[in-house]
């Protein structure tokens, strides 16, 4: 080869390289930004060779779930995963949707006996403007412990007042409460006025009332009045919105917060246990057109036909609580879910706790031991909670497009002997260690 030919070759090569570069750059501009792609690879996971219990669809005996950007991207016997997806081999394991607890005080309490660590109960009877979400402590030791048996998502709620405040639906993972938020407000927490129960009831001195019945009536009237005020307030606000000549009114935070309630947009999570409390709650909901969810609901089975007819869901639990009355059937709470199921009432379980929220699957399992079909038990901690709180497009089953809140287990998640091996919340793998596992590991090998 002479110099001239070599020179021409180099020139041609350089020109070809420049053309190639321009073409590549042009194509690149049509494709997503390569930097973003690299980040996405970190957000792509594929769980392979697993039994997939989708809950809403058929169970896939051996298949894969592809997770991308926090969502379930593909589910099936075969899925096409990008080569840079992180693979979790789940041979012999099962994938379930993360469990949802319909009632906790997670993040709002730490040590039961220490008032300083509790943020569940604000002063005053009417606190609809109190928002649970802003008091959620994301780094509570109770949160990782609560994940231990498969709960990924929970309602956390204030309590103890006639209107206690706004409950939030949170994911049990996140650096901040904003990151944990799934939906807020998820419901307005109320408590149907009731006679005090249990120990200390005999010593209760209802202020200014000579007996509990009187106190209850007074509280009921106050609640009705407050709802009527909220209706009037909402009406006045709407009037002003369409007619600017009307004088502006000062903001009333309590009534403002009740507007979505009296408009039937925000569900009311009403604690009502005794039969007449439940009936009373239904009456109030009828009168003020509230979207009602009954919580606690010990006697719901006695009101089952009305609940079904009016399509009112109930949150029950703990079903392991003692029967309320001495002459109740010994298994009255264990078999409650089975009765509701038979009657066609929509229901879901709650732990009604924080430190013991990890026992949620046992609420469902114990109910199954006393007559509830097993698949219904699972639904009542997955898809039914999602339906009741209006997030069934987002959570509660393994379906493409839903938030990737998943658990990978070595068996039935309602069983004691089952362990959760992997957990995803919002598409991210979650650390399954907790204060408990750390102390266990530290001391089991103490010399």
């Amino acid at each position: 080869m002479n110099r001239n030919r070599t020179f021409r070759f180099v020139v041609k090569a350089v020109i070809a390289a420049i053309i190639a570069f321009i073409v590549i750059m042009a194509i690149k501009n049509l494709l997503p930004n390569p930097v973003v792609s690299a980040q996405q690879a970190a957000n792509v996971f594929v769980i392979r060779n697993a039994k997939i219990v989708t809950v809403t669809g058929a169970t896939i005996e051996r298949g894969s779930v592809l997770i991308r950007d926090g969502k379930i991207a593909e589910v099936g016997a075969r899925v096409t995963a990008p080569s840079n997806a992180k693979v979790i081999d789940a041979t012999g394991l099962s994938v379930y949707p993360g469990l949802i607890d319909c009632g906790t005080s997670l993040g709002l309490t730490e040590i039961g006996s220490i008032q300083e660590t509790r943020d569940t109960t604000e002063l005053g009877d009417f606190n609809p403007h109190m928002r649970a979400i802003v008091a959620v402590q994301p780094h509570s030791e109770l949160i990782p412990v609560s994940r231990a048996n498969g709960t990924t998502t929970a309602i956390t709620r204030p309590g103890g007042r006639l209107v206690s405040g706004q409950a939030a639906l949170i994911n049990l993972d996140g650096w901040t409460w904003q990151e944990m938020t799934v939906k807020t407000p998820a419901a307005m927490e109320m408590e149907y006025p009731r006679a005090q129960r249990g120990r200390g009831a005999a010593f209760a001195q209802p202020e200014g009332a000579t007996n509990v019945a009187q106190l209850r009536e007074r509280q009921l009237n106050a609640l009705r009045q407050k709802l009527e005020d909220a209706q009037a307030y909402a009406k006045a606000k709407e009037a002003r919105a369409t007619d600017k000549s009307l004088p502006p009114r000062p903001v009333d935070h309590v009534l403002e917060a009740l507007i979505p309630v009296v408009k039937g947009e925000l569900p009311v999570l009403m604690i009502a246990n005794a039969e007449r409390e439940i009936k009373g709650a239904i009456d109030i909901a009828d009168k003020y057109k509230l979207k009602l969810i009954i919580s606690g609901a010990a006697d719901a089975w006695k009101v089952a036909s009305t609940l079904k007819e009016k399509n009112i869901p109930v949150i029950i639990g703990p079903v392991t609580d003692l029967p309320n009355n001495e002459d109740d059937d010994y298994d009255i709470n264990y078999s409650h879910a089975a009765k509701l199921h038979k009657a066609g009432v929509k229901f879901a379980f709650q732990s009604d706790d924080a430190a013991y929220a990890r026992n949620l699957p046992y609420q469902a399992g114990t109910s199954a031991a006393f007559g509830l079909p097993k698949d219904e038990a699972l639904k009542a901690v997955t898809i039914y909670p999602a339906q009741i709180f209006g997030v069934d497009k987002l959570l509660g089953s393994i379906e493409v497009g839903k938030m990737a809140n998943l658990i990978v287990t070595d068996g039935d998640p309602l069983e004691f002997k089952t362990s959760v091996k992997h957990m995803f919340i919002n598409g991210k793998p979650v650390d399954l260690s907790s204060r408990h596992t750390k102390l266990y590991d530290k001391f089991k090998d103490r010399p």
Partner: protein
Amino acid sequence: MKRYSTILLTALVAALASVALAQNKGEVLIKNATIMTASHGVIEGGSILVRDGKIAAVGKNSEVRAGANARVIDATGMYVTPGIIDAHSHSALDSVNEGSVSVSAMVRMKDVVDNTDISIYRQLAGGTTTIHSMHGSANSIGGQNVILKLKWGKSAEEMIVPDMPRTIKFALGENPKRAGNQSNPFGQGNRPLRFPATRMGVEFTIREAFQQAREYMREWDEYAAAKERGGDLAPPRRDLKLEAIADILRGKLLVHSHCYRADEILMLMNVADEFGWKVLAFQHVLEGYKVAKEMAAHGAGGSTFSDWWAYKIEAYDAIPGNAAIMHHKGVVTSVNSDSADLARRLYQEAAKTIKYGGLTDEEALRFITLNSAKQLKMDHRIGSIDVGKDGDLAIFNANPFSIYARVEMTLIEGEVYFDRKEDMKRRETIAKEKKELIEKERRTAPQEQRQPTPPITPTVSGPGDDQPGIKQ
């Protein structure tokens, strides 16, 4: 209202008792069962013969022969375990705490047994047959406990285990300190403060009591010696409190101590060593896993919760692996209820130790049977399915450590005290009877006093001593 409840309860007790009393002693044969013996593994296709209240034979179906008149229970597809023993209960008691004094060793729970507590029946329905019903934890040295068989329908005297080992309750940490502090979450009202207010004071209270008991014993010894020599002395004043403490020193009264933190566990063993007695079992003992080695060396058992924690600061380091670690380090470990609620599902509580501590079914079963029996010095009589032991048995529809298991039948000394089928059958009759009683009450109540049907008094079931989850 009181009258109404009483009538109802009496009817219920009578109805249930009639079933229990209809049983005869003689022979009972349970056959075709999966037998979880708690002492020598599992027998598939097995039979148990109970004769006159005692286990007469256990083995494969072919190895066990019963007489022609034996009552036969076909347990095909079912699991049989020893009757469950709750090493920490406050059920079937009229009162729990004599907390007005720092040392109440003189009071006895056997004097306040309530045989009509509905908790007895509910716990039978969970396979529980024996409970250690204890004094509360309000004071450093509490009262003497009672061991009961849950013979629903029988008198209090018949429920108390004859010749039961005597145990006494001690308490360390937050609970005995409460009465010494005004600002506690349980509220003392305007009551005067009671010593002690700190863990230092708790240790001193116990040490002082043993010091006084030693002196008391010496007084009596001197009196006995003088009498021996023919002296004509007045006897020392009898002190029932110090008599009980002296019995601890004599090894006749065994100590079960409520505790949480590792430091106080070590403290009590230290005091015990100093005065020459042993702690038979630590109760709750939520930080037992931190000092399991020391407990094992002392010979103390540990009776703990499966998963309670975070209800107070001394329970913040509690872990559900506690039972497993204590067990692996050689501590005789049990899982208890301390609650009228959990006592109905101790098999579920034990199942949690399998999950959190990687134990076997048999180890978990011992936590609620044989080991509890050892902690009560009753393992020669109850706690496993072995020939010669009491015919106390629970029959489950599935492996008891499955969440889908429930108890079908419970026997004490060969008598059926709970039968789920019978229970279900009775419900209609009881509902009808209840309705009739209410109607009668309405008809017979004087006109001017007639009021709307009162709600049934909510049960204060099992005066809980140390319930978790203080709710607002």
